[in-house]
């Protein structure tokens, strides 16, 4: 008996989303747990795993379709050998409806929360290599001659067959759209030295695709500044000393907690950086939601401290600890890492002198924080010792111009160097 695969809800508030792409084709066998599709909301991409097994009988919602309602049938799963119905079986009984049916979002698959993909570029679309590729003889020959990976081409012919125009479109794509994401699945170079091939996890693939997209579509530029930390460290020591030894009110602020708050307050003071670029308009966010990059065993993820400008340091600290712990355990809920209006990446604990980060789309900026270290500084024509860290702001030049970026970084420095406003 055929079963509808339904549009899953990625978060409790999600009502619709974009069916980004199919990872299975009509007629392909599906085992329980197989990733069959990717769904995008405005903030994130999630994989859809099959619950039941069978054959993907019919795709009802084409890849790239936006505004697909949660719980709308997106495909029909049939038993092997079963005839495929034309339309979605109308499940009269309500138990056949919601997400429990056949699709669940796979948890913790999205790296730095993600932007809506630009117009799907045929080459960029990684399709499964496994299984039979349906392509016309002419499409196969041209692909072979031009080195196009048919597994990465989406077919537009009858029943999704790849025909010549698809291969030609794939060939033309990088030229026609220079800002399109570069093909993630490049033809694999032949490696003949001794090596171990570690298969890419789905998280790794999403990271690869998202970061490639960000770095190749967003015009980045970088503004670096040295920031003295001594006042902030003194404040931290003072505040931590005031914490109760234990109990509900206890806190232990990290430097990072104070920097999150400093970033948030700076964003409130220079709000034009708390923004996103879209084709039609620059979006200025009402809330300051700070994404904090956390490295996890197989990549990284960005839990969000929402409304960080309005939270107290102890609130931020406790929330960050808890989120980071659950991020490392792979237990974040989608809404906890999807979204955010600005990101922080802190590599201070590794002793890094300075670095530049890749913007986490659709955000307009990310702050790279390096290690605080004692350096010789000049104060009033005399040498002095201060604890200094170098921060580098990566910005999307479509939204933020140089003067604005400089203004933001300077405001951040004065916030850190005169940190009392962090506690009021």
């Amino acid at each position, binding site marked *: 008996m055929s079963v509808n695969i339904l549009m899953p809800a990625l978060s409790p508030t999600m009502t619709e989303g974009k069916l980004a792409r199919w990872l299975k084709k009509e007629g392909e066998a599906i085992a329980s747990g197989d990733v069959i599709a990717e769904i995008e909301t405005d903030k994130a991409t999630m994989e859809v795993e099959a619950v039941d097994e069978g054959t993907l009988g019919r795709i009802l919602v084409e890849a790239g379709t936006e505004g697909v309602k949660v719980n709308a049938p997106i495909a029909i799963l049939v038993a092997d050998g079963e005839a495929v119905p034309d339309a979605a079986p109308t499940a009269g009984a309500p138990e056949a409806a919601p997400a429990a049916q056949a699709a669940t979002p796979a948890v913790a698959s999205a790296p730095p929360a993600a932007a809506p993909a630009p117009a799907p570029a045929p080459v960029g679309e990684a399709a499964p290599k496994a299984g039979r590729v349906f392509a*016309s*003889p*002419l499409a196969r*020959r*041209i692909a072979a*001659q031009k080195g196009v990976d048919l597994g990465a081409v989406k077919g*537009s012919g*009858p029943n999704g067959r790849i*025909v*010549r125009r698809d291969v030609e479109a794939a060939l033309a794509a990088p030229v026609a759209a220079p800002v399109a994401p570069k093909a993630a699945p490049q033809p694999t170079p032949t490696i003949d030295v001794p090596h171990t091939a570690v298969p890419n996890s789905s998280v790794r693939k999403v990271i690869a695709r998202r970061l490639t997209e960000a770095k190749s579509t967003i015009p980045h530029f970088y503004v670096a500044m040295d920031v003295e930390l001594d006042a902030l460290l003194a404040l931290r020591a003072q505040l931590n000393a005031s914490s109760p030894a234990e109990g509900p009110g206890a806190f232990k602020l990290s430097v990072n907690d104070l920097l999150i708050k400093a970033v948030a307050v700076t964003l409130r003071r220079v709000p034009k950086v708390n923004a996103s670029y879209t084709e039609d308009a620059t979006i200025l966010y009402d809330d300051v939601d700070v994404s904090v990059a956390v490295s996890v065993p197989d990549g990284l993820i960005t839990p969000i401290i929402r409304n960080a400008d309005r939270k107290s340091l102890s609130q931020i600290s406790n929330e960050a600890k808890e989120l980071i712990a659950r991020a490392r355990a792979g237990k974040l809920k989608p809404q906890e890492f999807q979204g955010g209006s600005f990101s922080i990446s802190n590599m201070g604990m590794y002793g890094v002198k300075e670095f530049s980060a890749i913007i986490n789309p659709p955000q307009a900026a990310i702050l790279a924080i390096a290690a605080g270290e004692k350096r010789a500084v000049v104060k009033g024509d005399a040498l002095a010792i201060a604890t200094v860290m170098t921060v580098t702001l990566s910005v999307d030049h479509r939204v933020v111009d140089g003067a604005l970026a400089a203004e933001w970084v300077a405001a951040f420095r004065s916030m850190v160097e005169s940190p009392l406003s962090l506690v009021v």
Partner: protein
Amino acid sequence: MNKTEFDLVVVGGGPGGYVAAIRAAQLGLKAAVVEANHLGGICLNWGCIPTKALLRASEINHLLHHLGEFGFAADNVRFDLQKVVKRSRQVAGQLSSGVGHLLKKNKVTVFDGFGALAGKDGSRRLLSVTKDGKPVAMLSAQNIILATGARARVLPGLEPDGKLIWSYREAMVPTEMPKSLLVIGSGAIGIEFASFYRNMGAEVTVVEVLDRILPVEDEEISALAHKAFVKQGMTILTGAKIGPITKGADNVSLSVEAGGKTHALTVDRVISAVGIVGNVENLGLEGTAVTVERTHVKVDATCFTGEPGIYAIGDLAGPPWLAHKASHEGVMCVEAIAGRHVHPIDPLNIPGCTYCRPQIASVGLTEARAKEAGHKVRVGRFPFIGNGKAIAMGEPEGLVKTVFDAETGELLGAHMIGAEVTEMIQGYVIARTSELTDAELKETVFPHPTISEAMHEAVLAAYDGALHI
């Protein structure tokens, strides 16, 4: 919905319109056809079908005069032109009523009258139907497909008069055989009439303005056809300029300049076959976004006119002027209206057939066009003289020519002249539509003995070398 409300109304019941209506009914749409004359349109009533009946008669006449080649003898071979014409009309009538049955079976309502756009009712389109100037009905539809077809182009001085100067229509129902005939225009229509009348015994002269007959075909095919027609006794004047026409009591005199010479001709009848113009008049297009360009309605790849709810297909919507193109567009357009995913038609995958003797059929690019388009080509040729079946049938004159892209092996075009080629071209059309390359065509096993083996050999000739030549 009452009796005048429809999901789709098709204006014109030709091979585009009636097929569109049937497809609409299959997809669950409530559909109607408005036809001013005969169901089946020109194709069925005054075009493709009745001419094939006539051409069949002329082939039989030819065969009867060559019985000796096959060991037969017959005296006093003759034909009754009235019976030949009557059979042709019966064939047309039978098929036209067949279309009526098909529409009825599919619950398509047929309105007898002239349809014209008559404004909007909300998002619905209105269509007035009139008969002899009197209103018959006012229809309302979600979508309207215009499929009113085309008619013969009339050149000044060559207006059909029903007696001496004929259009295709008079040429199809002659009351007596003209002794001599001038055909102006050497496209498919002109050449088919020239072939019919020549094979029925008339003296036929063909006049073409361009430098070769059948100008859309591959040059080699044009040349072979030219040679074959001349051998049959036709006179062909290409690169010709026609002087003023003098009508006599029962003949026409004119001078034709061709090849640097002036030919003074006197012929019993003249057939004007100089192309067609679209039936765009009185359709109520004024005040809509529908654009008419050179008597044809402009449409996009899914036959949409740009005016919400209004589509145009077939001859009305532009070349090639072929019934099968109209039918295919009708189906595609209706499927698009019904929300299905459709594939626009590639004009290079639409075959063309001319049913003269010898027959001509082609698909895709000619060799010259392929080169113009920048392809490096591989060309294969195979003459019928190397084909056993063709020789056994007494049809040793013919050629199959293939044009491949030298780099990709794509079959860019195929061009055939000879017996039965109109029945065989679909093999190459399937190859093109399926995007087969030389490899698959080479590996295909063709049945022996058939004339179609020449198609295989023409592929081999482009690559490894044909076997039987």
